[in-house]
């Protein structure tokens, strides 16, 4: 392998990260059950939690934080393209129902 050795988290740090992920999941489940109290904030909060878990796994477990930026750009590019395209499709379908029904 001709790569320079990238910094790695230690096993202890990996376990800590896993604990954080577990806690975030637990909060998500609690939010689900307390929807009546939290009200309109439930969905956005759930999404923030999901995104955080996503970023943590991608960044640390998949090592993207420590990787060459080229690889980062591929993944980010794919994400941005997907979000953009699918947002348009969903908006179009929602607005079509509005216009045509």
């Amino acid at each position, binding site marked *: *392998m001709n790569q320079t050795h990238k910094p790695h988290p230690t096993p202890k740090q990996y376990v800590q990260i896993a604990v954080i992920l577990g806690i975030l999941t637990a909060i998500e489940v609690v939010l689900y059950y307390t929807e009546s109290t939290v009200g309109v904030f439930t969905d956005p909060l759930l999404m923030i939690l999901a995104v955080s878990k996503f970023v943590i796994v991608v960044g640390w477990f998949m090592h993207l934080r420590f990787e060459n930026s080229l690889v980062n750009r591929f993944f980010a590019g794919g994400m941005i*393209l997907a979000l953009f395209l699918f947002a*348009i*499709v969903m908006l*179009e*379908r929602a*607005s*079509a129902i509005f216009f*045509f029904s």
Partner: protein
Amino acid sequence: MSEDIKEKRFLTVFKRPSSTEGIWSWITTVDHKKIGIMYGYAAFFFLLLGGLEALILRIQLAKPDNDFLSAAEYNAMFTMHGTTMVFLVIMPLSAAFFNYLLPLQIGARDVAFPRLNALSYWLWIFGGLFLYSTFIFGSAGAPQGGYLAEEIGWLGNAPNGGWFGYQPNASFKYSPGTAMDYWALGLQILGVSSLVSAFNFITTILNMRAKGMRLMRMPVFTWMTFAVAFLLAFSLPIIAIALFFVTFDRQFGTTFFLTEGGGDPVLWQHLFWLFGHPEVYILILPAFGIVSEILPTFSKKPLFGYAAIVFAGFGIAFIGFGVWAHHMFASAISPVAQAGFGLSTMVIAVPTGVKIFNWLGTIWGGKLNLKTPMLFALGFIAMFVIGGLSGVTHSIVPADTQQTDTYYIVAHFHYVLFGGAMFGIFAGLYYWFPKVWGKMYNEKLGQLHFWLMMIGFNLTFGPMHWLGLKGQIRRTWVYAEETNLGFWNMVVTIGVFVIAVSIIIFMINWIYSKRKGPEAPMDPWDARTIEWTIPSPTPVWNFSTPPEIENLDDFWHRKYDEDEEGRPVRKDMANQLLIDLESDGLNPKEHIELPNPSYFPFILASGLPFLGYAIIYRSLALAGLGLLLLLIGGFGWALEPIEEEEIGDVEDG
């Protein structure tokens, strides 16, 4: 890494294949050049099939109220014509060029993942054969309220829902029988093939470039390959899911696209065109690349605005993801979407225009050498501009509402796909013929092919512009006498026969010249890029010594200096350079390891058609067989070491 784990060979039952001759060498090859050649021949065969389908269609339309074909047969013929030409002709012909040329243009020995490359090919050919097996095994039923069952005929037992498979027309209710399943599953297999290629090419271009081959020194053809790979990689997954939805709707009772179950037919259109629009740029960008190589060579001038052409290519690819709903202006999409997509479609004309002006700038003031490749390249520019202009008129939503589903649209896309992509491909076939075969084609026959094709092509597709504006509807098997469209339809049909003759001339030229043509020198066109620095035909190892690149158009700069006015002046040692390059190229000094051949791509690929048949015929046995082949192929591949010792290597001297 402290320990060195030796990979153990698992399968001592099957030895690694090592033949270099004969059919096994082709089945087990991982050599990008052989794979490119296989793509080329197979795609040409499908060109003849697709062309035959076109001829049959045009015979039917030569006169009004004709009964040469029934409606059912007509639907099958235009569906197969379109599907064939897009997926089984232009894409694989482009793939033939990518495969053969890409490693040569960047100075590499092969692609990043040679076995994966072979897998792409075998998946493609099995997918194509699976699709066409519909004529043998498939059936198209009579839809309720549609034509009568007795009218279907042999030709009609093929996919008949259009190459775009609009739902619910292509659903089980309105397209009973198995034919549209062959279509959906066949395209699924073909999609995997291209997707796999895309990863391979992206990785190859990024990581396998020779020393000094910086990104901005790569030939434009390589850049276009790069853009195409991105388009494929990000658009194919979308249609893969869409095709799964179709198969589930047809076979397993879901209702993704069926309103009676709460589904949405327009969703299909979105998903299909999210792929379908990038697909048309996938079809044209390779030709853009080919023409960008040929024009400078035959004008003895560098490409005008190299950077602009590269960025415009990526601009087209990128914006190409944002225009898909212009295929849906007449479907029930919201007016906001119509406005937005109309705008984005107009915008995409800009980078396209940049390229055209740069090509014109390349020719301007050049010393033009009007050989066949150049004729096709010039023809490409003219024909593509016509097609592009009609395309821009579609971007205006109210105008498009008139044009949609008429022959005006048919004229547009044939001008860009045939006059554009195919002309570009023919240009490339003639241009690189000497490099691949070591022989020169016959120039007179080449010119005859070009002129006949130009005449035939314009006779065929020119009149379609006004036929469409006068109201001739597409995808319809007859038109009435009272429409007075008969005369120009006859002209169109005659044009198709002229095209057919020109293709026969091309084939004669190819077959004859390959066998008996004069030997071609290493650099017959006095070209600019490094694939011309190696002997013709290309040695199996490509470059004897890895090239070191110092410039864009590196080969040209090794042959030519510039005088004070920027004109090229041939260096004195240029001829000696050619002699040295050839002799070095034929005699590698060091031991060269080539990627080893393998059975497993072939085996793995063969499993997918069986899975397809299993779904259509609900056969567990076939599913089991397909899975078994996939597993054997997959396991064998995974456990095969990447490099074996001393098999198929090139010895010194």
